[in-house]
């Protein structure tokens, strides 16, 4: 007879620069099952962890933006594959803390996979939609092309913690931005395991960085960090939106805050839209003389 194996519970950590570090402060948050059992501890990121994540994202940004659209698409598709491969794990983690049970969780994971596939496809197409050949009154070719703005901070809501996180990451990521994402505070487990998806999908270190922690604690630091170029968030209360906008004014960050009901995240027509990409590009216009 074989003895029953001991369970191997995961130690959830942050995901920064392609590694899984513990928080610098050593703080954690307890995660309770819906039946109120404590099932895990996750890192509670501080300002220092955020700074490390931004530094990693900044370091990776040039190479990610300069990678071919084809390669970015391949990598994002690979993320979708790896996420799909972990379907069962994500489903049970989500179901353990999010109301709605297994059936809801399975639907959420499937939608998250689809969202990644969708934006993997947009990597080599968005520029055809957003770029322009401008009619000018002179002997010039005048062309406008979109380029990534830089480091984008993502602040995920508590509703649909995996799907919303993926939906906020994918649009800026596909054009060459690097990401520092703060996952749902109430349901952080999916964020932690999503790091494993990134780590096994050839996502270059630093391109996606994932933090878990308290939104109220980190939002002021995200807002005032001068090396963050854009912010993508959803369903924030008014007070936090104001903090974001005030801090963002300091270095003119682009702030996009959606307000979406839980079922709206499943609306492919709304969420697979290239205009979700547009806030995270900088338009570059070039003039080239033609003719004599």
């Amino acid at each position, binding site marked *: 007879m074989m003895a029953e194996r001991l369970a191997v519970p995961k130690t959830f950590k942050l995901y920064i620069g392609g590694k899984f570090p513990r928080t610098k402060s050593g703080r954690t948050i307890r995660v309770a099952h819906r039946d109120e059992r404590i099932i895990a501890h996750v890192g509670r990121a501080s300002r220092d962890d955020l700074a490390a994540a931004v530094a990693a994202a*900044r370091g990776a940004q040039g190479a990610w933006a300069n990678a071919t659209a084809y390669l970015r698409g391949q990598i994002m598709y690979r993320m979708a594959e790896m996420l799909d491969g972990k379907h069962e794990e994500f489903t049970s983690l989500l179901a353990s803390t999010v109301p709605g049970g297994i059936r809801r969780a399975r639907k959420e994971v499937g939608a998250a996979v689809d969202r990644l596939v969708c934006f993997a496809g947009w990597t080599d197409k968005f520029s055809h939609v957003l770029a322009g050949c401008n009619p000018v009154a002179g002997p010039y070719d005048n062309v406008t092309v979109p380029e990534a703005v830089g480091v984008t901070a993502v602040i995920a809501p508590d509703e649909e913690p995996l799907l919303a996180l993926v939906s906020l990451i994918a649009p800026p990521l596909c054009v060459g931005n690097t990401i520092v994402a703060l996952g749902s505070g109430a349901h952080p487990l999916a964020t932690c395991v999503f790091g494993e998806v990134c780590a096994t999908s050839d996502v270059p270190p630093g391109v996606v960085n994932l933090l878990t922690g308290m939104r109220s604690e980190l939002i002021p630091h995200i807002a005032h960090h001068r*090396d963050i170029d854009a912010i993508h968030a959803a369903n924030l209360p008014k007070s936090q939106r104001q903090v974001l906008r005030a801090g963002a004014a300091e*270095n003119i960050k682009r702030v996009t805050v959606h307000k979406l009901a839980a079922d709206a995240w499943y609306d492919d027509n709304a969420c697979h839209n290239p205009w979700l990409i547009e806030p995270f590009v900088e338009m570059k216009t070039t003039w080239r003389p033609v003719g004599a």
Partner: protein
Amino acid sequence: MPITAVDSVMVEAEAAAFAKRSVKGEAATQGMRMALSMLDLTTLEGKDSPQKVRALCRKAVQPCGAMPDLPHVAAVCVYPAFVALAKRELDGTGVRVASVATAFPSGQYPLSVRLADVRAVVDAGADEVDMVINRGAFLAGDRETVSDEIRRVKETCAGAHLKVILETGELETYENIRRASDLAIEAGADFIKTSTGKIKPAATMPVVLVMLHAIRDHYLRTGCMIGMKPAGGISTAGAALSYLVMVKETLGDAWLTPDCFRFGASSLANDLLRQLARQATGSDTAKYDFSEA
């Protein structure tokens, strides 16, 4: 000269302990300001240009326009060709001009050429000369030659301060580093310096600790204070603070001045400024907030 054995396990454990000290708040601010005032702001690249040296000199005098109350750095460190320019730019500012010499970084030129190199930078007005030792001779066991050459360079320096670069990354063992330190001090070094910055590993905490022990023992024997300059590989404010803790606890407060301790670094300045700005304004900074030179 007695040969001092080095307990490598102990040195590494002790150095690692210094790196674990937590320096925060006002103490960190004071420490970072001190580190800034001890900086030899350095550019030693083949592509250095007069423009880059000028920019470096401006930064040496006023490290950050947004924080005008910061101290100036101790010195700028350049190649011989830029000494006269740096001297002109820094005239009257209190920032000293250091130049590498003796066929830096390899030192593998005839002694006459190396001495001519030193004479040229002294004539051009360098306040400090950073020489490299003859590692080939040292590792071959020919300490007399090494010692002799340092003496000849020291004579040639006239009034300029002499920093002797051991290039610890090439000396293989802690014992060698200790012996080279003792030898350089005996031969007339005003400062002993770890590295050229061209060889990895450059400055590490255990290596610097071994050199600090040599300085301490010399002081206890003779009452004469030799300076220390770790160079290369120190790029963060946190690392700089660890070094300051190590100097304070190994040699004492008397060494915590730019006359006795220097950091040779190019990217450390910006990290110090980043952290000081972060403490002053509460905002984390972007790379473009500080000039690159």
